[in-house]
């Protein structure tokens, strides 16, 4: 019973990681940039969700606000920050992104105050009995949303013209361009989808902990970086597997290895161990 509970908790946590990591891995796959500022979009989503929810009382409006704001901010970051430095060495974009994230965190602190916000009436708190376990409605909603989002993404990438153009641009940017694909539009699309998902993840974290604070993006974003590396950098399927695996490893690890390492260190110990055995990531070939 304990095993089942840990497994389910791990998968739920993993679905959150997956929603954050997908955007990172999409951006990396397309631009080879480690997009640290992605965590800022996640925080932005959380803040706007709480603010809009408290103002309107509608969870739908909150979700829309979280996704739209994060998507817009993500596309703005691409246009204003990354596009001009794409031809520079990789550490340039990395450090620029870190600087941007620090600045974003500070903007949240200055605009919304240092102590964070909470819902006036937290939504999705009803306990639900499933598989003999008691879960919060929010946890189930998060896992379901992640599942739907990933399925939608898969269908989009494989069964639409735009999705085909997108995959072509990731694989062979120059050839795709000569076939009439506009690479800049595809990049906007990647930032739109990835950032909207991060915003949505921000909403769910806000719901589950009933708290948003300026630094809430830090730990999930470090872990999302570990996840996309585990997944093989840029490999979406690999990242999904890695996200779920990390969630489960953390759930079991905190119970059985909690005395030796804390939860965060455990995640990175797992990452380093896997990378030593499979430097190309969990699913990577070669």
């Amino acid at each position, binding site marked *: 019973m304990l095993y089942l509970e840990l497994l389910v908790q791990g998968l739920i946590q993993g679905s959150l990681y997956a929603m954050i990591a997908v955007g990172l891995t999409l951006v990396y796959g397309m631009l080879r940039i480690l997009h640290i500022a992605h965590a800022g979009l996640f925080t932005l989503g959380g803040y706007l969700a709480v603010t809009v929810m408290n103002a309107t009382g509608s969870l739908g409006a909150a979700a829309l606000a979280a996704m739209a704001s994060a998507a817009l901010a993500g596309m703005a970051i691409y246009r204003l920050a990354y596009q001009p430095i794409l031809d520079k060495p990789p550490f340039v974009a990395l450090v620029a992104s870190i600087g941007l994230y*620090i600045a974003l965190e500070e903007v949240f602190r200055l605009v919304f105050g240092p102590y964070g916000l909470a819902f006036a009436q937290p939504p999705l708190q009803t306990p639900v009995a499933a598989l003999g376990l008691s879960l919060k409605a929010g946890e189930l909603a998060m896992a379901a949303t992640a599942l739907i989002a990933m399925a939608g993404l898969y269908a989009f990438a494989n069964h639409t013209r735009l999705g085909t153009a997108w995959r072509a641009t990731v694989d062979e940017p120059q050839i795709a361009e000569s076939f009439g694909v506009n690479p800049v539009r595809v990049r906007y699309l990647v930032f739109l989808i990835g950032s909207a998902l991060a915003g949505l993840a921000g909403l769910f974290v806000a719901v589950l902990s009933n708290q948003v604070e300026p630094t809430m993006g830090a730990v999930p974003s470090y872990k999302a970086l570990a996840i996309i590396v585990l997944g093989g950098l840029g490999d979406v399927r690999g990242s999904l597997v890695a996200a779920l695996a990390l969630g489960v490893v953390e759930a079991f690890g905190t119970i059985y290895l909690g005395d030796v390492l804390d939860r965060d260190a455990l995640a990175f110990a797992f990452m380093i161990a896997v990378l030593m055995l499979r430097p190309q990531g969990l699913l990577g070939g070669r």
Partner: protein
Amino acid sequence: MGAYELSLFTVIGINVILALSLNLISGYCGQISLGHAAFYGIGAYAAALAGKAGLPFAACVVLAMVVAGSLGALVGGISLRVRHDFLAITTMGVGFLFLGVVRSSDWLGGELGISQIPAAGFDKPMYLVLVLACAALVAAFSVYIKRSWMGAAFDAIADDEDTAGVLGIDVARNKIVAFAIGTALAGLAGALYAYYTRFIGLDSFGFVTSISVLSMVVIGGIGSVWGVVGATVLLTLMPELFRFINDYKLLVYGGLLFAVMRFAPGGLAALIGGGLTRLRRA
């Protein structure tokens, strides 16, 4: 010189050593590390524990360098297995692993840190002179390495590992040596820090520290000794200079980091170097 200036300059000296130590790994040898603070921390903890066990100051410093350098060589071994962005994230993981291990080890002080580290046996002005002398030595050593045969090998590896290997450069050995030297010097900075504050806690060795050290290197102009020294002095002084806008200090810091990368990706060295060339031409 008042107590305030004394401590400010001491911190600058320690930061210069730390930034130059990362410059050896990331600047010369091209291996971006996001976990350098771990080795700074390892040096500080080694020196603090040895000092409390009764070892003299000089022995503690040497021990800190040896411990940090050996663990650094181990991480250098990792860099043979994973490259580029994979390596950057792996070293970030090493940083978090260090924090996690210290946090759950009572003999390392856990969350509380280590206090009552014995005095180094110098008064404050003397200690400042010692730190600045060490910083000058490290800077001279950096210049020496850059001009040596090994510096050329590092440079080749930073440019293109595979080609360097084809040219007969022992890539694996050079990378491990770069990590060992760089992390040993970070250990030196850590030991000097531990004996300066005489109290150490995890807060000083986290991801934020790793990032700020990398910022000093990158803003200075990756690989350039005087650029890195200049940027370190500037970035250490900056929070003090911006004290009057205390609330916006970090915002300015983050914004500056971003702006330098966005508009002058070569850092201070390229910015000033380019300016001089243009002046000479005019």
